[in-house]
Each structure stands twice: as structure tokens, then as C-alpha cells.
């Protein structure tokens, strides 16, 4: 039994945290959010220099061969800073799919760019009207000559406007789900960008007769669903860690506010009704932290998919419930100030709210959890 981070894990997280504390202050974040791309190239390349992109990639591909546990503390730091760059989508989803599904040639062509930060990927998985379904339906690939032609649409693809390449899930024939690497600027791609409520950039994407070469297919034709399921579980575990960082910030800021804000001539921290609510926020966060650790550990070590899915779903239920409680209470305890755009607490509220329902909300994961026994 050992719940401490290793020296390497701690050092990496410390340097990321230190960097973000200096270069990702709430003011600097605001400037990034309102910049044209909504993301910072400087932040991205610094994270790449620190090795963050390479942590969970196989050593054979130039990575460090680590897993979710090795990224937990980094994700916590990103959550605390409310980082808007699509790191989770890059290392949790898209790069993982390339690493796990890709041929040697595909990995050699793409992963070095991931590691040095020059290649930005986004995973286009969601489809309108399909909620959290991972199996593609509205996006179809048909063979043409040696290659494929892609038609259909995806929605709220986080990081898409910024990405060089998309990893697209599509239904090929009647076989099932396949994955394709697609140039984000290819002919026939129509991208409608948007800003998310928590400050990220995303896009709805239409594919109209997009022609793909033979080597665009990533992994087995029709057999990609287990790969997608695994990558989404991996990303969900990272998202849980990110949520812990955001909840920790919400708790720290609220606690500080209770101790400094005065009403009726005394700090509001002296009111027992507020003390007990603060204690509940703290307990929720610690219980959620335990489940985030469990999810990260199981995506790295679970003996089978059922064990992994069960742990990830349990964690996501707890994180969704805790994120809701902590974020709502942090606004309530800040009073009117918590409602304002000016305070980071309202941005943390928005981020935690969206984390609660990304990759499946509590109801979705309760259903999946129960289906596993």
C-alpha cells in the first residue's frame, strides 16, 4: 500500500504547478481565452518540453511508458489552473488512440510530433442525438479504390479548431466502428467553431465526401470500439484527476473567503451553518480524490475491461456528484461575488459543471456501473 507520488511524479507535477502559477494566472488565462485561437502555443510547447505529452506513450515510440497514475498530479495542477488548452483530448484520447491502434508506420509518423508539441490532435467522436454513445452512426466511411470516403457529422469536438489532424470514428459498411486519421484542413471538411461555457474551443464538423488514403485507417476496420472505449476510460480517469484540482481550488478559495469576509462585525467563518457546509465540501473532495486514485490505478492495471469500466464509472459518479456539490456550494458561500465573471470561482463552477457531464454524467455511469454487477 502506497498512496504517495513517486519522486519523479512529484517533481514533474511540481514543475508544472510552478509554471502554471507563474504563467497561467487567472489574468493570463483570461487573455488566452479571448485570443483568436483561444489556446496558447507557448503553454503547449512548454508542457511538451517538460515531457507531459510523452508520459503515457510507450517507450518504443519515444515516450516514458507511464500511465494515468503518472499524469494524475499534472492533471490536478491543470484543473487548479483551469487550463483551457486541450491537453486531456491530446494525451488522453487522440494520442492514446494513435499509440494503441496505430501501425508502426503510423506511430512513427505521428507520435514524435505529439511528443514535441508540433502535432495537435483532436478526437472527433460525439454525434448529434447520440449523447454519450461511443459507437459511430452518423459518420460513415466507404471504400473507394485503395482508400476511403468519409461522410457525416460530429459535434462538440474539443480542440478541433486548433488541431492539425483529427482522429475520426466512423461506421464502415456494416462491420462497426473504425478510426481514421484525417487532415483537419482536408477538402470536404466543414468546421463550425464555438467557445465552450468553460472557456475551451470546440467545433461541430461536417464531412462531405472527404477522400482518405489507404493509410488513414487506424487500427482494425470495424473493430475500433474496444479501443475507443479504453481511451475514453483513460481520459475519464484523467478528467477525474483534473476535477480534483478544480475542487481543491474551489475549497481553498472558499475557505479563504470565509475567513476574511466579515458580516455583522465578524468573519462569516464563525457561523456554524457555513462551517458545516465547508466541511461537507472537504469530505466530498477527499472521497472524490480516493475514487480518482482508484480510476487512474485501474486504467493502468485492471486485468480486464469489466474491472476497468466498473472502477471508472464508480469514480465518475462520485466525481460528478462531488463536483456539483462543491461547485454549487463554493458559489453560494461566496455570495453575490461568486456569481461574477471577475472571480475565478465562477469559472471553476463552469468547468466543474462541464466535467460533471463530460464522458458520461452520473446517470450514464450509474447505469454502466450497475450493468457490471
Amino acid at each position, binding site marked *: 500500500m502506497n*498512496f504517495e507520488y513517486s519522486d519523479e511524479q512529484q517533481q514533474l507535477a511540481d514543475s508544472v504547478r510552478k509554471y502554471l502559477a507563474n504563467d497561467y494566472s487567472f489574468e493570463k488565462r483570461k487573455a488566452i481565452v479571448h485570443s483568436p485561437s483561444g489556446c496558447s502555443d507557448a503553454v503547449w510547447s512548454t508542457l511538451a518540453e517538460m515531457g507531459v505529452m510523452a508520459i503515457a506513450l510507450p517507450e518504443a515510440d519515444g515516450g516514458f511508458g507511464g500511465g494515468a497514475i503518472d499524469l494524475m498530479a499534472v492533471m490536478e495542477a491543470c484543473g487548479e489552473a483551469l487550463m483551457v488548452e486541450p491537453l486531456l483530448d491530446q494525451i488522453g484520447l487522440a494520442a492514446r488512440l494513435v499509440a494503441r491502434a496505430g501501425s508502426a508506420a503510423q506511430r512513427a509518423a505521428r507520435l514524435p510530433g505529439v511528443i514535441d508539441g508540433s502535432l495537435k490532435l483532436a478526437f472527433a467522436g460525439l454525434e448529434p442525438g447520440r449523447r454519450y454513445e461511443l459507437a459511430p452512426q452518423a459518420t460513415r466511411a466507404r471504400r473507394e479504390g485503395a482508400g476511403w470516403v468519409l461522410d457525416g457529422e460530429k459535434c462538440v469536438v474539443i480542440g478541433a479548431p486548433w488541431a492539425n489532424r483529427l482522429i475520426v470514428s466512423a461506421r464502415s459498411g456494416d462491420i462497426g466502428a473504425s478510426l481514421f486519421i484525417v487532415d483537419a484542413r482536408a477538402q470536404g471538411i466543414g468546421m463550425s467553431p464555438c467557445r465552450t461555457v468553460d472557456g475551451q474551443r470546440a467545433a461541430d464538423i461536417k464531412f462531405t465526401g472527404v477522400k482518405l488514403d489507404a493509410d488513414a485507417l487506424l487500427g482494425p476496420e470495424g473493430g475500433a470500439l474496444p479501443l475507443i472505449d479504453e481511451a475514453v476510460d483513460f481520459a475519464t480517469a484523467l478528467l477525474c484527476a483534473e476535477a480534483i484540482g478544480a475542487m481543491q481550488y474551489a475549497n481553498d478559495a472558499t475557505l479563504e473567503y470565509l475567513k476574511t469576509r466579515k458580516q455583522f462585525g465578524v468573519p462569516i467563518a464563525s457561523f456554524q451553518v457555513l462551517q458545516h457546509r465547508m466541511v461537507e465540501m472537504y469530505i466530498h473532495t477527499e472521497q472524490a480524490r480516493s475514487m480518482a486514485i482508484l480510476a487512474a490505478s485501474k486504467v493502468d492495471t485492471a486485468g480486464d475491461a469489466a474491472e476497468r469500466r466498473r472502477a471508472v464509472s464508480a469514480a465518475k459518479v462520485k466525481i460528478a456528484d462531488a463536483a456539483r456539490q462543491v461547485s454549487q456550494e463554493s458559489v453560494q458561500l461566496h455570495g453575490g461575488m461568486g456569481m461574477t465573471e471577475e472571480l475565478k470561482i465562477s469559472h471553476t463552477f463552469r468547468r466543474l459543471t462541464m466535467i460533471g457531464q463530460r464522458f458520461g454524467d452520473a446517470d450514464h455511469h450509474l447505469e454502466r456501473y450497475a450493468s457490471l454487477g
Partner: protein
Amino acid sequence: MDLSYSPEEAAFRDEVRGWLAANLPADIRDKVTHYRSLSKDDHLRWHKILAAKGWSVPHWPVEWGGTGWNITQRYIYDEEFGLAGAPSLAPFGPSMCASVLLRFGTPEQKQRFLPRIRDGEDFWVQGYSEPGAGSDLAALKTRAERRGDHYVINGQKIWTTLGHYGDWIFCLVRTDSSAEKRQEGISFLLMDMSTPGITVRPLILMDGGHEVNEVFFDDVKVPVENLVYEENKGWTVAKYLLGHERMGSGAVGSSKRELAALKALAARELKNGKPLLEDPRFRDRLSRVEIELDALELTSMRFLDKMRRSGQPPGADVSMLKIRGTEIQQAITELMMQAVGPLAQPFVAVEGGAVDPLVSRLAPRYFNYRKTSIYAGSNEIQRNIIAKMTLGL
């Protein structure tokens, strides 16, 4: 990070599990798993079996009969008891009174009381709460007047758990009512419950059970050698005991066993011809409890790991385990009662009826478990502790 127990810890778990399987009397286990109360004889019989194995007081210093186990082993031991349906020993003697004697007792007091506590010779109970002094313990009024080599006690205690089994009682009493601060003037006394003037009156709870009592003291003569620590310094002793709460207060082991029983029950009960366990409304509530218990188990393990590293006692963290642990226990008993629907109504099993007699225990048990968020420092007091000690509020 590594979330698993070491091979040595796993082997220790197997040893405890194997020993419990071979040595826990079936009648005692059945009473626990069928929610029936244990007699005094059951308690002391089980205590003596543990004492013969040398496992009745694991947490004591080895020279007094402790096992020398580390904190993780003690946690595993507690958890296995819960999983097996083995009753934990009543904490009043082995955990509470003994901790006080080990810390504050004279050599004579230790020699006189500790071996008998260890071996289950005497059943000890606790005399803290009074009608006007619950969470606000320092408001207690039971008086002890010094007369020569005796104290004379007058007053009343309440909520005395298993007081009707008590051979001995440890009490907080007021020895100086003129003290400026209420916390001063309190003393810690040990009393033989067969002393004339002590009367135990049952308080029947809403589950119909007799578990707690009122204890009345009417000119009870207690020899001064039964005073522990200094006269008027009993608050120091009481505070020490409050800080002595156990890591096992999350009750993870017994809640795991009860959750499995709940699932089995819900798989048997039918709703619209299908197992209740498959009903999404019921299942969601069950799953949330199951997940909270998973989280509590890991949180307990995190605290164990932290304590092992720092060598420090758990402190205010234990309050979190108590709050969530009791909430989970209450949620499980409630779901079990709800799982049987209308069959929960009979107060006692219908003689020769078609329904498993266990079913009639479910509603009373739900009633009884409302106590868990009230006793051992109400959950509101636990929140006060976290607010003050952990959050600095």
C-alpha cells in the same frame, strides 16, 4: 502508488479470516447477521475466546497483553471482524477505560483492573452523558463529595449502553462545583456497579430493544483509590479519551457484508415480476451507496498509509470516517427495509408465517441505526471537529 496490501498484510488477513471461520461461535455470528441482540454471556464468551487466542486487546502495550500489531494490521483485524459477522468487543472496557488506565492509572490500578479487562472477567460500561449534558459534556451535574476515604455520589447518567450488563462503570463526576470554569472540578471515577445505591433503569428504544439505560446514583460510596488521575482533573482524562477514537469507526467491513446482504435481498424481491435489483430507481440509490463505500475504503487506506509514514495518530481525519461510515450504515439499513416493501410492517415475525423471520427485523434495525449519527460524538460534533482542527475555522 500501489493500492494493494503487501503479501505480508494479505497473509495476515488470511490468518485472521481463517481463525474467525474456525472459532467464531455460529450462534453468535447468526445473532449478528440476523440483527438480534447479544446477551451478556455472548459478549463475555466471545471475549474469553479472543483472550485465549491473545487477541482481545490488540492495541494495548505488549507487556499488558497487546499483540504489537501495527495500525494496518489492526485495521485489517477490525475489517475482518465486520466481514465475518463477528461482534466487536464492547469498547468501554478494552478500548476506553483501559486507555485511560494505561495513560493515567497508578501501578496498583493497572494491576487491579487491566488483566480482568483483558480476559473478559468484568463487563465495563461508560457513565458520561447526563440528561442535561450530551454533546456539551462539561455541563454534567452528578456530584461526588469527599468524606474521609470515600466519595459519596449522587446524580444520574443516561444513554448508558449495555448498562444492564455492567459489572463496573467509569464515570465523570463533579467534585468541585465552585470551580470558575465548568471543565474544572470534574473527576474520573471507577465504580463497582453492585455498590448499594446504584439503580439501572432500561430505556426502550423505538426498535423495541433494550440497549441503553439510565443509571441513578443515590448516596453511593466509592473508595478514593478508585479515583483515576487527580481530583478535579477529570476533563484532561475525558479529552484524552475523545482523542482516542479508532480508525475502525468507518465500519467498512460490516458495511461491505451488509451491502452484499442487501444485494442478495434485492435480487430475491420481485417488482413487476423482475428482481428489484434491476429496478433502475432502486438500483441507482444502491449503487451510490456502494460507490460511497468504495470511496470510504480507499479513504481509510489513504489515512492508514499517512499514519504509517508520519507515525502520528489519525486526528480529525477519523471524524470524516465516522460521518461517512455512519451515513452509509444508515443508508444500507434504510434500503434493506425499503427492499421488502409492505412486508416490513410486522413488528415481530408472524408465527408460522410465510415470510423469512429476518424480514421483520429490517424496519426495527433501520430505526435502531438512527443512533449511529448521534452516538460517539454526533455527526454535527464531528463536523465541528473537522472545521476546527482541519480547516482552522
